[in-house]
């Protein structure tokens, strides 16, 4: 049970870590000052959350928040594939965020009544921040879709590319099933229903089309990643690998 709980925390924490890193890459590179500040603020929120998750994980199974974040191998990271996708352009960044925020908010709403007190407390803290992110990404999806033909084309391209990464979010693996049965995590079937209802409503309102093919990528939660994660880790882990045990 404790082992499963540890792995469950990594499932939550790795999403925050990898997406936080992706957004941090935009520091000083956002398309405008306001969006630059927004995206890096969100990155900071994720790093705060991942510290909470990994501190708890370290108490359960040993190690430290830093060793969990910086010293695992690629296949030991269990983030979903969606969050590691590249910052191709602003539309991709916004669509990735939109697809993730809607899911994460539903997850946190459920975790706010988790039987695990610590996860419960982390979720109650995180949900306030994520609601704010959710508002940001949804507004921007609407703006880009309702903007010029160029901005519509770009957000549509991003939708077509990123949508196939969503199913992984709502198909439970063995750990998530076990956590749901223990009253710690949500029922992902339930979440999935709400999730697709919500994002399809926004698609309908904005004229965005989901891809016709029902093809979905998966593997992240089992440690099988797209090529992008390796490059993320090369940068993320550089300091700890080069100067072992270094501290600020």
């Amino acid at each position, binding site marked *: 049970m404790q082992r499963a709980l540890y792995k469950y925390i990594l499932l939550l924490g790795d999403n925050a870590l990898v997406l936080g890193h992706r957004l941090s890459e935009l520091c000083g590179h956002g398309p405008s000052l306001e969006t630059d500040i927004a995206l890096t603020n969100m990155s900071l929120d994720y790093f705060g*959350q991942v510290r909470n998750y990994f501190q708890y994980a370290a108490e359960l199974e040993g190690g430290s928040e830093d060793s969990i974040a910086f010293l695992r191998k690629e296949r030991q990271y269990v983030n979903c594939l969606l969050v590691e996708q590249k910052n191709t352009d602003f539309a991709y960044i916004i669509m990735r965020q939109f697809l993730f925020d809607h899911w994460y908010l539903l997850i946190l709403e459920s975790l706010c009544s988790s039987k695990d*007190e610590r996860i419960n407390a982390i979720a*109650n803290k995180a949900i306030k921040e994520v609601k704010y992110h959710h*508002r940001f990404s949804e507004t921007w999806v609407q703006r880009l879709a309702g903007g010029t033909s160029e901005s519509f084309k770009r957000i549509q391209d991003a939708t077509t590319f990123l949508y196939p990464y969503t199913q992984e979010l709502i198909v439970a693996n063995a750990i998530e099933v076990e956590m749901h049965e223990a009253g710690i995590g949500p029922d992902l079937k339930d979440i999935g229903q709400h999730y697709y209802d919500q994002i399809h409503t926004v698609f309908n309102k904005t004229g965005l089309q989901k891809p016709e093919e029902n093809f979905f990528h998966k593997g992240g939660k089992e440690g099988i990643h797209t090529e992008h994660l390796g490059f993320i880790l090369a940068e993320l882990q550089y300091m700890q690998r080069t100067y072992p045990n270094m501290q600020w």
Partner: protein
Amino acid sequence: MVRTAKDIDARLYTILYKISDPEIPALSIIDLGIVQKVTLEGKHVEIDITPTYTGCPAMDSISMEIRYTLEQYGYSCLVNLVLDPAWTTDFISDVGLQKLKDYGVAPPLSTEKDKRVLYDGERLVPCPRCNSTNSKMISQFGSTACKSLFQCEDCMEPFDYFKCHK
């Protein structure tokens, strides 16, 4: 929550009241409402503080400042970060709200008004300089996680608004 000198040892209160959030130097950590519990045994102090935002980089520097300051007064000190109760802007004291305004940061409105401002673009935040509510949001995210950026359209001054966080 530690709010007045009655809640803790009076000497400790005086010392802690001098420590402020580096991002908002006008505001003591006591007025900010992040000091949850203080226990004193002999010369050893144990303090629970709760973060405003999870990723707030000020938390590490505040913890360090608390330890450093108390050690100067001859105390040994352990600072714990606790998540429960989750901090909300209701934890800011009335004195704190006034100090924020004097410092040039518009204090948080009620949850209901805050939503109307941030989600529907209504003009309700009073400018900390001229009190006009003819203010508009320039950026949803501001200089720190707890603030967003506004501009008063009467005196034209841009200002930070401390978001309602509940």
